[in-house]
């Protein structure tokens, strides 16, 4: 793989995580449990899609084949998406939605912080913009997880269930293949074992306060970075891409 292809793939991985999570959060629009949360989730979706747009635009420039952000978001198939399996998991109840975001946020904030020092100036600039918003995201999902875990018997049970169900997908966030390891050497991408340490610290701190049990690190459902997904991604793309597929080039 050339350096250019590798940078394209690496950038796409970040972008796909953000786009798919953003789409999942946007599914709550108009269905939030309370008005404030409806607004919070759509705001977060907007932050994620904003960062995704910057990354797709950059990926398109790196690739140099004239693909813009829309072409990358709307005109790729399931196997060409390289997001983690975590972000494509369904919303479920509110505990599942919060836990999915919490696991992602606990990874995304230290990742963005590290990327601000990337040898790649554009990735660093995009991260510097995102890092400030990511602090609000961690705060939001942590607050809710603590409220659920340390809440009623029912909310505690549901939060623990969501954690147990989604934990197996968290491993996908920390997979380092050859592409990634080359970039660690080049100072472009951070070593994910360091990001994992920051993730663990956040998870342990919040779960302790939430009186929730950290699931054991058993089997991890990985493969997203290689384009191998759970059944859910295809359905997301079918809905998200329908308009551009049916009416190519349609604009507002």
């Amino acid at each position, binding site marked *: 793989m050339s350096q250019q292809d590798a940078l394209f793939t690496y950038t796409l991985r970040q972008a796909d995580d953000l786009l798919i999570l953003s789409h999942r959060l946007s599914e709550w629009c108009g269905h939030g449990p309370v008005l404030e949360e409806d607004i919070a989730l759509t705001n977060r979706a907007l932050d994620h899609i904003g*960062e995704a747009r*910057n990354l797709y635009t950059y990926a398109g420039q790196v690739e140099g084949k004239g693909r813009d952000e829309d072409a990358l978001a709307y005109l790729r198939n399931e196997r060409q998406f390289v997001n983690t399996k975590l972000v494509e998991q369904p919303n479920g109840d509110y505990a599942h939605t919060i836990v999915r975001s919490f696991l992602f946020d606990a990874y995304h904030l230290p990742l963005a912080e590290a990327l601000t020092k990337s040898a790649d100036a554009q990735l660093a*600039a995009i991260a510097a913009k995102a890092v400030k*918003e990511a602090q609000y995201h961690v705060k*939001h999902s942590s607050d809710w997880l603590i409220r659920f875990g340390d809440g009623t018997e029912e909310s505690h049970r549901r939060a623990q269930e969501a954690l147990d169900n989604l934990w197996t997908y968290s491993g996908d966030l920390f997979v380092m293949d050859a592409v990634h390891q080359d970039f660690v050497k080049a100072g472009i991408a951070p070593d994910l074992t360091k990001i994992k340490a920051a993730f663990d610290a956040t998870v342990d701190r919040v779960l302790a306060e939430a009186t929730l049990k950290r699931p054991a690190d058993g089997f991890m459902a990985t493969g997203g970075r290689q384009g191998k997904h759970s059944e859910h991604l295809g359905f997301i793309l079918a809905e998200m891409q329908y308009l551009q597929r049916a009416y190519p080039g349609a604009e507002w």
Partner: protein
Amino acid sequence: MITKDRILELLDYVKDPEIPAINVLELGVVRQVEVEADGKAIVTITPTYTGCPAMDVMAADIKKELLEAGVPAVEVKMSLSPAWTTDWITETGKRKLKEYGIAPPEKTADIRALKGEQPVVACPQCGSTNTVMLSAFGSTACKALWKCNDCLEPFDQFKCL
């Protein structure tokens, strides 16, 4: 001949589409204004929040304002770095926000909210600091939702970034 000062005068009329009380200069998003030899103006702006939909509108409004004032050609560039901060909102901008009913952001040096503590925010209606945050996310990406415990009015706060 259009000068840089003239461009800045014109930008004074371009409002934030979501918070029309302040203009793009007061919001601190205009990073650079250049005028080329042929009179073409290049305005560099920086996004507030990454996904803020108002940025596209602002860019279009800047173009429209300058073209209508007789600037022969206008280009609006988007620059991500250095990242925008609420510290770039001017003092006039902060005053206008308050008059408009939006509590202005605290200084980022005093970013207590992110360290688990709540910032002290004065109610823009009655000035009381007996206030409480209802949600960190408000009607636009840049605002949080607050309530005043004294006058009981809900209000928006421009949150620190």
